[in-house]
């Protein structure tokens, strides 16, 4: 293999930080976890805020793509990923408000003369607003609802995300001088373009809930609801109760929010009916667990057939029993078991079988092209610019239903594009990420980070008493970690951002690092192809998603090969190296943002650039 080029490829060490790499917004997770362990909650909050804009919200609701990626989950034994998401909430819970206010970016009173329209007040648009406001842009924010937040307000139930948390983080942005046009549904993009905005960002989400056209659908209409519309009506208090027997159709997170909300509005016998087997449901495992804990029944392998109505009112639903069959490992078919249909009596049905982006308000002659199959706008995946150069898309409107953190990541990139576009610069020219390496050695056996690691099970977030949460849909279920639990959970982090850095010309090939490495990451051997090397390292390197770090040839013409897969970042290699050929250095990776210069948090100011 060729020697690994860690110097010119900013992604090499980034990828070693599994969580940060997996986070769509590339939040510097290990750094904020260390700050939490150190009790520096405010700093941890600001570091998050700079990356993902909504730490308090995301610390409760994020889809957490970082956690399945967490190295801890790959370790020996019963280890599970670090509770990255809930630690984020800790930063939000214990931060000092007064200090936060002082650290928010300064908004210039003299504007730069450019005005941008943002359609939809969800996380995507809010992120664009936050990134552009400090640069002097004038921002006009439109939403059909009376308040900002998008689906974070209209869909995510208050028992998962309290209004106060949502308001606080949305208000940080609105207070940047954003001109809001709430209760304003944009009916025509053409008209909006006539206003003369310098650019328009479309972050209207994927608001259209899918329906089920089955026999009886029309007749039972008054008691059959589209899940997302129903949740929005609950959120804005147009709906306050539901029948005792409720059937929820669908197996995703929307279905979980529907059933749990129904439970709080008076539902007693609630059945979530899903076509797929339990393990294959789209809902996150923790959402399913929470629903089950609230006495909700999940019925799997049932395919809806018919709404049964008598005398013009809904009585029941019938289902066909199915079985999952696989032609190929990934290819599932649901086959009827040919048994008699199952009838489930019910008062209300909530349909939660997916949503789509919809653009009835965008005229098709404006130069914005749409993909015929997906009906989504055609956009540049890096710049989020549409085929009409003035119009940018992000969030669910750009790619179909995703999640908040993806909407934020899009928002950051779109903000760069809009800025470049408005300043007359090429939108596709983008600066590389800001990276740095910070030495960690302080003395013999002394590092700036806590390199000691021990087996420890993931801590479970405590819940509010069931009696309390069942009667008030606004009482938050999760209580969050207290400070002690947060500390213990934070200590489970392996500090994957502290990199093992190898300097060939210092190595005397004594093997000390290879001998001490507890997980057999390091091997000195004759070079070969990647496949060959993976098969003959001290421990087989079978996880091909993780890279091999290969040195240039050493004195004996062998190479050092390190399998990054299960490195514990324990620093023993560096401890045992007599010549400091191994060193531990913190890799700082910051995604380029429009306002990078203004926000470099102070902890990153203590860097000693590696020569």
């Amino acid at each position, binding site marked *: 293999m060729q020697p690994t080029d860690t110097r010119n490829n900013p992604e090499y060490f980034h990828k070693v930080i599994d969580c940060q790499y997996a986070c769509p917004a590339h939040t510097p997770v290990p750094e904020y976890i260390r700050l939490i362990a150190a009790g520096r909650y405010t700093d941890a909050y600001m570091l998050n805020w700079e990356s993902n804009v909504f730490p308090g919200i995301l610390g409760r609701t994020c889809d957490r793509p970082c956690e399945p990626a967490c190295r801890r989950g790959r370790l020996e034994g019963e280890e599970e990923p670090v509770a990255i998401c809930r630690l984020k909430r800790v930063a939000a819970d214990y931060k000092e408000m007064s200090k936060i206010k002082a650290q928010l970016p300064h908004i210039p009173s003299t504007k730069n003369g450019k005005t941008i329209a943002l359609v939809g007040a969800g996380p995507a648009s809010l992120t664009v607003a936050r990134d552009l406001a400090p640069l002097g842009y004038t921002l006009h924010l439109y939403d059909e609802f009376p308040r900002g937040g998008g689906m974070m307000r209209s869909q995510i139930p208050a028992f998962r995300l309290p209004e106060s948390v949502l308001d606080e983080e949305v208000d940080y942005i609105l207070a940047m001088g954003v001109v809001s046009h709430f209760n304003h549904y944009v009916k025509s993009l053409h008209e909006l373009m006539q206003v003369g905005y310098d650019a328009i960002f479309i972050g209207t989400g994927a608001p259209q809930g899918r329906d089920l056209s089955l026999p009886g659908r029309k007749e039972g209409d008054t008691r059959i609801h589209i899940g997302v519309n129903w949740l929005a009506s609950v959120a804005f208090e147009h709906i306050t109760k539901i029948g005792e027997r409720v059937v929820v159709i669908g197996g995703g997170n929307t279905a979980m929010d529907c059933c749990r909300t129904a439970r709080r509005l008076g539902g007693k016998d609630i059945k979530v009916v899903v076509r797929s087997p339990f393990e294959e449901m789209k809902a996150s495992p923790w959402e399913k667990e929470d629903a089950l804990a609230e006495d909700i029944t999940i019925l799997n392998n049932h395919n809806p057939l018919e709404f049964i109505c008598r005398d013009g009112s809904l009585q029941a639903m019938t289902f066909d029993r199915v079985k999952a069959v696989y032609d190929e490992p990934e290819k599932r078919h649901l086959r009827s078991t040919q048994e008699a249909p199952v009838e489930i009596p019910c008062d209300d049905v909530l349909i939660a079988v997916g949503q789509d982006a919809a653009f009835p308000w965008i005229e098709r002659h404006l130069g914005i092209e749409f993909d015929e199959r997906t009906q989504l706008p055609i956009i540049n995946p890096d710049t989020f610019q549409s085929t009409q150069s003035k119009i940018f898309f992000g969030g669910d409107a750009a790619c179909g239903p995703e999640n908040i953190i993806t909407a934020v990541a899009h928002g950051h990139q779109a903000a760069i594009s809009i800025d470049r576009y408005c300043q007359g610069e090429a939108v596709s020219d983008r600066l590389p990420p800001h990276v740095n390496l910070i030495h960690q050695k302080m003395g013999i056996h002394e590092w700036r980070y806590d390199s000691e690691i021990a087996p420890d099970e993931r801590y479970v977030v405590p819940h509010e008493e069931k009696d309390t949460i069942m009667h008030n849909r606004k009482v938050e279920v999760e209580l969050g970690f207290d400070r002690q639990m947060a500390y213990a959970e934070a200590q489970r982090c392996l500090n994957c951002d502290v990199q093992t850095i190898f300097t060939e010309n210092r190595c005397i090939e004594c093997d000390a690092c290879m001998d001490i490495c507890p997980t057999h990451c390091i091997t000195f051997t004759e070079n070969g192809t990647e496949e060959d090397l993976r098969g003959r390292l001290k*421990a087989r390197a079978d996880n091909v998603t993780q890279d091999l770090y290969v040195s240039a040839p050493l004195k004996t013409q062998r190479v050092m090969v390190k399998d990054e897969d299960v490195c514990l970042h324990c620093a023993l290699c560096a401890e045992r190296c007599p010549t400091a050929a191994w060193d531990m250095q913190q890799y700082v990776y910051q995604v380029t943002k429009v306002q990078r210069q203004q926000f470099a948090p102070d902890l990153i100011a203590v860097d000693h650039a590696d020569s």
Partner: protein
Amino acid sequence: MTYHLPAFRHPHSPPNSAGHTYRDYEGVISTLCAGCGHDSISAALVQTCYELSIEPHQVAKLSGIGCSSKTPNYFLGYSHGFNAVHGRMPSVATGANLANPNLLYLGVSGDGDTASIGMGQFVHAIRRNLNITYLVENNGCYGLTKGQPSATADHNSPNKSGEINEHISVDLCGLALQLGCGYVARGFSGDKKQLIPLLKGALTYKGFAFVDILSPCVTFNNHAESSKSYDHIRAHAVMMGELDFVPAYEEIVVESAPRKVQRVQLHDGSSVFLYKTGDDDIDLSDATAALNFLRTHIDSGHITTGLLHCNGAGLELHQTLNTSETAFNQLSEKELCPGNQVLQQINHSLSVIR
């Protein structure tokens, strides 16, 4: 601020045929200097015992005094261990072996422990063909007492502060050959590819198996002028062919390349194969040829590594003495103390001989 060995090991570390994983052969974290050759030897021993599927509780580790003699604490944590007085490991090993011949004896010593204070004990253990694997972790100095030159320090080589060693050095392999040792090898801590087969052969060999392992002392004897430094050894080593160890239970597949190969079968049916790489050609069963080979290369400033001699003919100490093959701890009190009458019989038989 930490310096401890994490409990985590590789999640897919496979067990060996005895059902043990790598971890079962490890010891506590080493306190030797970072980069010490001795630590590499400990790692090689862990790997060797794991690969040979040795039962850790069937091994007795014995050592004297020195950094090298400390190492038994850093491997085979589930084995028996005895840290003897400086240079006195061979007599403790002899006693242990006579009391229980059923354990695998592993003696770990240093060049000081063996070639200086322990020389007398060492030569007699070889002479008697004690059934033990005897390792010398040879760094040419007394590491533990701050690096004084030892009896294996090369003639005319300077120490760290530039003082020249005026004395002739002892070549322990040469000495072992001279004394009739049946298994004589030299390895280098920095070359596990060669060292591990040497150790496997030694641990399988019945009788005194001696392995002299060059093992740089990074702190006191790894300077540029040292003849026991990593660089010097790498630059001056002459390897006696490539070695392969095939355990008894494995099928033998001899490499097809047209190279000269020698095979020595060990007592338990395992084999050591030696593939010649250079022009030098000595017979593994010919101790005199090995001695000459060593001598010639010492004279030209080279260090010979590899298996020098392997010969399975001699009787080990138990066989010579005709002593109990059952361990004392398996014998009853009556067998161990048969009483006055038996003692009288023995005395009588002795007086008859006289």
